[in-house]
């Protein structure tokens, strides 16, 4: 399954709860090509319909596995069940507090009927905001499907 298909399927299966995961990529001469979307458990316990958290321990494990395979974590995704396909103020605030400059986030709106809409964003420290990117730029993959290379 291509990365974007896997992300949309994960978002649909998880509704009405938020789901999350990482984009695993492979660096090459032209940038980073996303080769896999890896689902990660949403560790948010208080409000899992409207919040998500990727545990640093999970991220550490995924980072190690990716590096062992010659890959690296290229970004993240999460769903917004019954909320718009764009970063919320919560997303913006938490990104601003963390290490997020230049990081790709896919945000997927999903409703109870299975309708899912992806969008792609890059957080910029300079503006303290997410800036939208075309999906094919934020999520370039090899082979079939979306083509291209994310510039580094």
């Amino acid at each position: 399954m291509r990365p974007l298909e896997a992300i949309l399927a994960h978002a649909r299966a998880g509704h009405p709860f938020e789901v999350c995961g990482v984009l695993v990529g492979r660096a090459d001469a032209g940038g980073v090509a996303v080769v896999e979307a890896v689902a990660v458990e949403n560790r948010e316990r208080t409000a899992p319909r409207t919040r998500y958290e990727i545990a640093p321990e999970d991220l550490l494990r995924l980072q190690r596995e990716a590096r062992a395979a010659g890959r690296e974590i290229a970004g993240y995704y999460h769903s917004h069940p019954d909320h718009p396909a764009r970063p919320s103020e919560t997303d913006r605030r938490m990104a601003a507090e963390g290490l997020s400059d230049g990081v790709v986030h896919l945000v997927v709106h999903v409703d109870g009927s299975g309708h899912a809409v992806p969008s792609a964003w890059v957080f910029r420290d300079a503006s303290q905001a997410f800036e939208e990117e075309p999906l094919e730029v934020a999520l370039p993959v090899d082979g079939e499907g979306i083509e291209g290379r994310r510039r580094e």
Partner: protein
Amino acid sequence: MAIKVQIPGPLRPLTGGAAEVEVEATNVSGLIEALEARHGGFRERLLDASGDLRSYVRVFVNDRDVRTLGGKAAVLPPGATVAIVPAIAGGGGDPEGDVLQNPLF
């Protein structure tokens, strides 16, 4: 003894793109200062205004969270591997929505 430090993507502009660097340090506080000395900008990105590790930045020493090892005073064993990991969180709901959906309220 050199400590290997794994650098997350958002901090690699500070290291010239390197995903891993080596510095000499015996504890986490010294490690941050050593990183700052070689790659300016680390202190501000890792520490808050009061000098504590930022809550959205996690530092692991040989896979153990330094918050369980004494924080900035955590000792680095010779040859340790340190990983700097961003905390990733957010969500579609606004704060008021969270309260309304939280059964505790």
